[in-house]
């Protein structure tokens, strides 16, 4: 227990987390501080570029691991299974309409790549290594949850109303393509390639991440200011416990697959994290009746800060405990 607190407080006092807190505080105090939209989008792409490339270059130097297939499969199963758990859990806890519960479930089955990036950085600080292909697992986990979420919502929605599933948009959304593409390029060009782009994607990475988390804090804070009234205690309780449940479901998969301590920690982080970029956009097309104010406030306003501060150190502990 003491360890978690030590880890958590070390994590809490890192610049990255403090910038998130700064953004949150600025938004709650109604400051007009903001990262311009196009820059925020670019930073998001930069983060995909960097972790994708580094993951791929890691693959190139450590060789193709037979566990890759197991890890990918684990990711796909987790992404499809967690929405069912989340759906049942939130249905029990709250009286939200079925369609909102289904949409929330889809978000928790899918992943937050920034949470993944923050976890990677935390591992680096602790000098725990992890499998490079975990970024591919992250990519694989984005889509299945969306389909399950839509399936869960089906009976609640008028079937004649249209609302086609934007599958191509989900699978080929910009972040995923960048992540997978950079991963592939990192893999192909290997250490030599990495050297060429190192002073762009490695050295300034933490600083850029600070800027991005500042923005995340601002957006989360503004979301809380507007959506805060929807946050009844049971719903907040869901958003604080669901990530831990997700991580605990993921841990055995990591163990069976034989991932390293870092790999297990990252798999738990992915399972614990909730989407706030790709899934909301997909929901607006396919499930417009679900309210963004609910799913975005939960995933970005509650679960993301929880994971960033307490969750990540916890999942690192789980990883070390299982495979350390």
């Amino acid at each position: 227990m003491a360890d978690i607190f030590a880890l958590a407080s070390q994590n809490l006092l890192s610049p990255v987390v403090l910038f998130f807190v700064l953004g949150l505080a600025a938004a709650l105090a109604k400051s007009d501080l903001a990262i311009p939209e196009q820059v925020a989008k670019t930073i998001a792409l930069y983060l995909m570029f960097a972790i994708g490339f580094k993951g791929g270059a890691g693959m190139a130097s450590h060789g193709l691991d037979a566990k890759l297939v197991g890890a990918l499969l684990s990711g796909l199963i987790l992404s499809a299974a967690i929405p069912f758990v989340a759906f049942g859990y939130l249905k029990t806890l709250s009286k939200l309409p079925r369609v909102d519960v289904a949409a929330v479930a889809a978000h928790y089955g899918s992943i937050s790549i920034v949470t993944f990036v923050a976890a990677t950085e935390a591992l680096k600080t602790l000098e725990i290594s992890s499998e490079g292909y975990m970024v591919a697992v992250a990519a694989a986990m984005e889509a299945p949850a969306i389909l399950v979420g839509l399936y869960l919502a089906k009976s609640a929605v008028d079937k004649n109303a249209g609302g086609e599933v934007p599958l191509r948009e989900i699978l080929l959304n910009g972040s995923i393509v960048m992540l997978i593409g950079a991963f592939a390029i990192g893999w192909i060009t290997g250490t030599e390639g990495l050297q060429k782009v190192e002073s762009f994607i490695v050295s300034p990475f933490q600083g850029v991440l600070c800027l991005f988390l500042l923005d995340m804090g601002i957006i989360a804070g503004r979301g809380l200011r507007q959506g805060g009234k929807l946050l009844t205690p049971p719903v907040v309780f869901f958003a604080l416990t669901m990530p831990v449940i997700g991580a605990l479901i993921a841990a055995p998969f990591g163990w069976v697959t034989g991932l390293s301590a870092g790999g297990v920690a990252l798999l738990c982080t992915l399972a614990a994290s909730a989407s706030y970029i790709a899934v909301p956009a997909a929901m607006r097309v396919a499930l417009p009746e679900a309210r963004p104010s609910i799913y975005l406030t939960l995933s970005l306003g509650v679960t993301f800060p929880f994971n960033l501060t307490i969750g990540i150190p916890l999942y690192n502990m789980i990883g070390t405990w299982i495979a350390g």
Partner: protein
Amino acid sequence: MKTFSKKRLEIFVEEPILRRLTDALVDANVTGFTIVPALGGHGSAGPWHRENALSAAGHMVMLVCILDESLVEKVLEAAYRIVSRQIGIVTISDVEVVRPELF
């Protein structure tokens, strides 16, 4: 200078739906349209601002289409079909144009 009566269709719609709407307009044989990004706004779901979201969900755009009266009925129906479940505000107004052959 001689001018000619046409219609101006203005639609506020969410970005994730936009492609479906523009496909429908093209299918309905409008000669063209122009899309302008919105910065923010306010509606029944409260205020929104482009900077307050990482996701395209909730981002509105404004689409303007100058068209001939004869197309209005068909275009309105196509637009309505798409935005009926979604956020979407469709308005029509009268305008005069200089080059009628463009519409």
